[in-house]
């Protein structure tokens, strides 16, 4: 049984913080995949920041006569149903992607870490109440939530992103809570407490460290989901308002032409995939780098 084996291990891995970051960066750099992730994310940030200079054309300029132009020639990645340059829209769309991905994850995590740690650590009545609220939120239809947020705050990417963040919070909360529950009762935590460390110290040192991998993996996956949910909402008219390009909206509008001009939906879809991949690799790299159990395992 797992328990007996663990008893033999002992409190071997209580970490001294000082050399963590330098060590971590070393490990990070060594992983090729992690570096690729970093590069992709960096490219994304550059695209978002430098969009006005990088984009070859005005993303809002329509040329109906050139609608659905295939990639190549004037339109490197093709044109959409209005004859707008897809590449330019892709570049400008990275802003929305970063906003949606980044902000929604941040909101979801902020809520999840707060509530999840609260529930997992405090236990008892607090746990029961928090989890029931989570259940209510989980059952609440996200479309209705989005409409409610938009009604209150107005349409637009920012407000839809808030709705997406709130939507992702319950799932993340449950994940955090389960990680906290496991960590809290682990041998390390007990040993640390036995050694006299305060609850706070145990929380910050050990529990959070245990939660981090789960959180990182989930966030990077959630980002893809977030972008797609924003896409669906945009398509209904709740997200990016025209002519703001959003990858998600580009994919949604390309739906009608999937069988005649697949590039309109597929190209932004691939962009979403690449961005998500980048964040994922970055996230994995971070997680591996920060995991002290890998120290000495270069």
């Amino acid at each position: 049984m797992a328990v007996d084996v663990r008893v033999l291990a002992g409190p071997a891995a209580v970490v001294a913080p000082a050399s963590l970051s330098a060590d971590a960066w070393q490990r990070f750099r060594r992983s090729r995949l992690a570096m690729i992730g970093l590069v992709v994310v960096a490219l994304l940030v550059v695209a978002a920041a430098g969009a006005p200079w990088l984009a070859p054309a005005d993303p809002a300029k329509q040329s109906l006569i050139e609608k659905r132009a295939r990639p190549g020639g004037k339109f490197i990645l093709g044109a959409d149903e209005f004859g707008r340059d897809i590449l330019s829209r892709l570049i400008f769309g990275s802003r929305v992607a970063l906003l949606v991905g980044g902000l929604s994850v941040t909101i979801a995590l902020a809520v999840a870490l707060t509530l999840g740690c609260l529930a997992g650590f405090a236990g008892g009545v607090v746990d029961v109440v928090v989890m029931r609220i989570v259940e209510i939120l989980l059952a609440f239809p996200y479309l209705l939530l989005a409409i409610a947020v938009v009604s209150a705050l107005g349409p637009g990417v920012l407000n839809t992103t808030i709705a997406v963040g709130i939507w992702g919070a319950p799932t993340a909360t449950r994940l955090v809570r389960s990680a906290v529950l496991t960590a809290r009762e682990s041998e390390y935590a007990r040993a640390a407490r036995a050694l006299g460390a305060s609850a706070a110290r145990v929380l910050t040192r050990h529990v959070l460290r245990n939660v981090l991998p789960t959180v990182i993996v989930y966030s990077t996956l959630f980002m893809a989901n977030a972008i797609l949910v924003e896409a669906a909402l945009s398509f209904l008219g709740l997200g990016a308002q025209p002519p703001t390009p959003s990858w998600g909206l580009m994919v949604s509008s390309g739906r009608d032409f999937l069988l005649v001009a697949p590039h309109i939906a597929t190209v932004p879809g691939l962009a979403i995939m690449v961005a998500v991949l980048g964040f994922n690799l970055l996230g994995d790299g971070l997680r591996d780098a920060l995991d002290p159990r890998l120290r000495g395992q270069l």
Partner: protein
Amino acid sequence: MTRARFALAALIALGVAGAACLVAPAPADAQKPGGTLTIVRPTDPVSLDPQLETTAPGAWVYFNMLEPLLTMDEKMQIRPALAASYEVMSPTKVRFKLRPGVKFHDGTPLNAAAVKFTFERALRGNPPARWASLAGPLAGAEVVDDLTVDVMTREPYGPILRTLAMYCTGIVSPTAVQKMGENFSRAPVGTGPFRFVEWKTNTHVILERNPDYWGDRAPLDRVIFKVVPEEGARMIALQTGDADMVLLPAPAQLPMLKRDPKYVVHEVVGGRVVFAGMNAAVPPLDDVRVRTALLYAVDRKAILENILEGSAVAARGVLAPSVFGFKDMQLDRLYPFDRAKAKALLAQAGYTPGPDGMLQKGGQKLSLSWLAARGRYPKDGEITEAIQAMFKDVGVEAKVQFLEWATVFTQFRSAAFKDHMFTLGWVTSNADADYSMYALFHSKQVPPTGWNTSRYANPKVDVLVEQARRNLNQTEREKQYGEAQDILAREMVWIPVYNTKEIVVTRAGVKGFTIHPVEYNLWLGKVWLDK
């Protein structure tokens, strides 16, 4: 006649006769009875009873089961249906003589009492029928004798005949309604060429031939209406043979389908006009020069060719051509696409380009707010975006807010609607100009009372529309509506974009189907399958 001339005449006669034989339609392919027609469309009906459902998904189905007193053929002419003849007795009363020997699907006879029952149920039922709102001042029906019924209106009502030819005024079997109660709405009993078999919610509705139909028996054994929400999937179903007929096909695929002999694309100009509306109560759109300039700024042809791609036709006015009283407003002549003219007019109105190229007056940017929904009408979102870009090309900024239909609809209905522009579509339900002209352009019909969302107000038009409504002389009515549309054309409050086309795609083996300008009138009584 000389012999030569006689011979020549004979030759010509022979030639003409020969040509006539070639040109005259070949005798109709022998109709093969039997078979099942599978139709795919996007949504399931809410109900199969006009009492509760007046939208297309339900109408497509019940149109083949429930028949009105009159009907409109494909040329929009009024024809007898359950009523064999009629006579206008007074400005508020029309007498109908019913066809003898007609039976409902449950075997009970069609008679004046059934007609009276249908109208009572619709007008004074609890709650009243959905279609009651479409029927204007319809008051009810009175039994004169078994096969004679009088239909009355509260006040003189010019459109009365067309109203009674509407798809949703089908006569129902009183016996069935009383016996089935609520279940009637899910399994209606009428007199049509098809009768109800089964309805599996969100999946399919099945009808079968009515062997006792009073008219020509339907060739088809069965009709299955299937729900396939995704447009792409509907088209694929047609290609795999899972479907014989597609309703609301994908516009982008039409050109390819038209070239393919395996399929037939049926199309006809329909009854709905989709437009970008202008709110004439909110400055600067209260200035007719600004409105006219905006009309000059829109390249309607480009929108039709590139966004609608043949799935619709240019709107020729505020009404559809199939509507009685329609007048071609000559929009291409009055408002051709001309950016220079647009800019000039706006300059006349005091708008000059600012530092960023966008127009402004007295330091204030010319910025219009625009409220629209996506997906309510075909390509409504795309049209809005396209026009937004076209406005930008003349220096007018349009801030578009897309919201979902429920929210948008609520705002349109509100008396406090303050946006400059809106995107909307309007179908003239009874194909009579009164229906639209009154609700959309009479000054007292501002929401929530009516649908004059543009807040158009012209006393001359008010008078014309009121008079035409109460006039039973159809020739005079036509003239009055013509005049009203002439006035309206000179101070447009709409940018009419397109007029729908009713388009249905079938496999080549589906014969005998004629498409109707009214989208609800999906008549399957003459359809047969040639395997």
